[in-house]
């Protein structure tokens, strides 16, 4: 099991959020999520400037196995999407916390329940039981 980056917060839907210095939030899926999905083959991204609601569908990641919705863990406006994923969706498998980021939002409210790395690790451990 890989180490969880300490500068991120996590959701029960296996997404991560990074608070950027300019006030925006970068979002991706966790290593646990990419491993469960298997090799990714397609990512459907939102439009830049699109508004998303907290809990609303924000992107779709499709693996060899299944399609999985990525829900916005925080409401806001999409200011950037990771266009590299269109040609290289497997970046999410290879580097889920880095090159495999999915969107950057300018938040319009607070995130829902998020967990620090220790709490997310405890959540994962409990899933394994």
């Amino acid at each position, binding site marked *: 099991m890989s180490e969880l980056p300490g500068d991120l917060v996590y959701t029960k839907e296996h997404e991560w959020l990074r608070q950027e210095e300019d006030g925006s939030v970068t979002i991706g899926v966790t290593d646990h999520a990419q*491993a469960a999905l*298997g*090799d990714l*083959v*397609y990512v*459907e991204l939102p439009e830049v400037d699109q508004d998303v609601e907290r809990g609303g569908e924000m992107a*779709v990641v*499709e693996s*060899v*196995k*299944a*399609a999985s919705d990525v829900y916005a863990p925080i409401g806001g406006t999409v200011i950037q999407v990771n266009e590299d994923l*269109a040609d290289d969706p*497997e970046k999410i*498998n290879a580097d889920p916390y880095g090159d495999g980021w999915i969107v950057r939002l300018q938040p319009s409210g607070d995130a829902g329940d998020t967990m620090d790395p220790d709490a997310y690790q405890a959540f994962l451990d409990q899933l394994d039981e």
Partner: protein
Amino acid sequence: MGSQTPLYACHVEAGARIVDFGGWDMPLHYGSQLEEHHAVRKHAGAFDVSHMTVVDLSGAGATEFLRHLLANDVARLKEQGKALYSCMLNSAGGVIDDLITYYLAPDRYRAIVNAATREKDLAWINEQAAMYSVEVAERPELAMIAVQGPEARSLAAPLIGDQWREAALALQPFYALEAGDLFIARTGYTGEDGWEIVLPAAQAPGFWRQCLDAGIRPCGLGARDTLRLEAGMNLYGADMDETISPLEAGLGWTIAWEPKGRDFIGRGPLTEMRSNPGQRKFAGLLLEGKGVLRNHQRVVVDGNDDGEITSGGFSPTMERSIAMARIPAGDYETAQVEVRNRLLDVRVVGMPFVRNGKIRIDL
């Protein structure tokens, strides 16, 4: 916890992601399903298919029994070792299972049926066999390993005993050989060359490790599914089941209508369906744009939405999404598939999509 094959410990040791498949704990992949897929298309892969059910049929009435039980005709098997793919139908013409039957010797056959259908298959076969002079013997003590890919036979050949190796390498496609403890068949479910090897459970882990040591990559059920989809090979339970006839599953070619006098189970209803011009047809679909086609998505042709994807997914070889679908009768070159409330354009194509490493569709 489900049933485990004799290779279960090997899979866990190799870091496999284990999933339930028809009550069996089976490897989905050993890290990357895509890499496993490509290994089989370009080199060689090994699959644990020990969950499949081996049934030996013998006795003076074995041939007569199988000619009644199966929609294809075992009387076509003139040479020992020859294999026949067939559907086993219920009395309404629906598919109970698809299977391969090997003609081993006069009055002796081996059938290999699916894992998830084991119980109902055995019950049906035994029920039908009661009226024939045939002994039906399941062989749960046997394991099965498929080595598939352009290099599979040459890499696995050194693992075959000296006295059998030459004969094994001389097997033509769709022929099998009894080689001492081993049963070697030049068959598979990937669209590539290779062998399916049935062997005693106790020998399976050793044979598996030797395959891996020889450079054959372990492959899970995930790659097995994308390989068979590209190869245009049906999956029982997805592409056909007891409510679907072989005619609507692209398996009309497996029905032996001649001789007319052969009374196989399901023949009557099937004959009626055959003359029904409204019955749906089975076709391949190629997604023109980006996205992934999935099972059960609706297929629309000329405004008629009575079509359904039975097996859809991403083709690693073509780097496009492909599917098998049951669609309304008629000649169509294009159709649309409903994906998350949007209609995406697909091309209707013949299958297979890929065979022997080559893409057979113009992209």
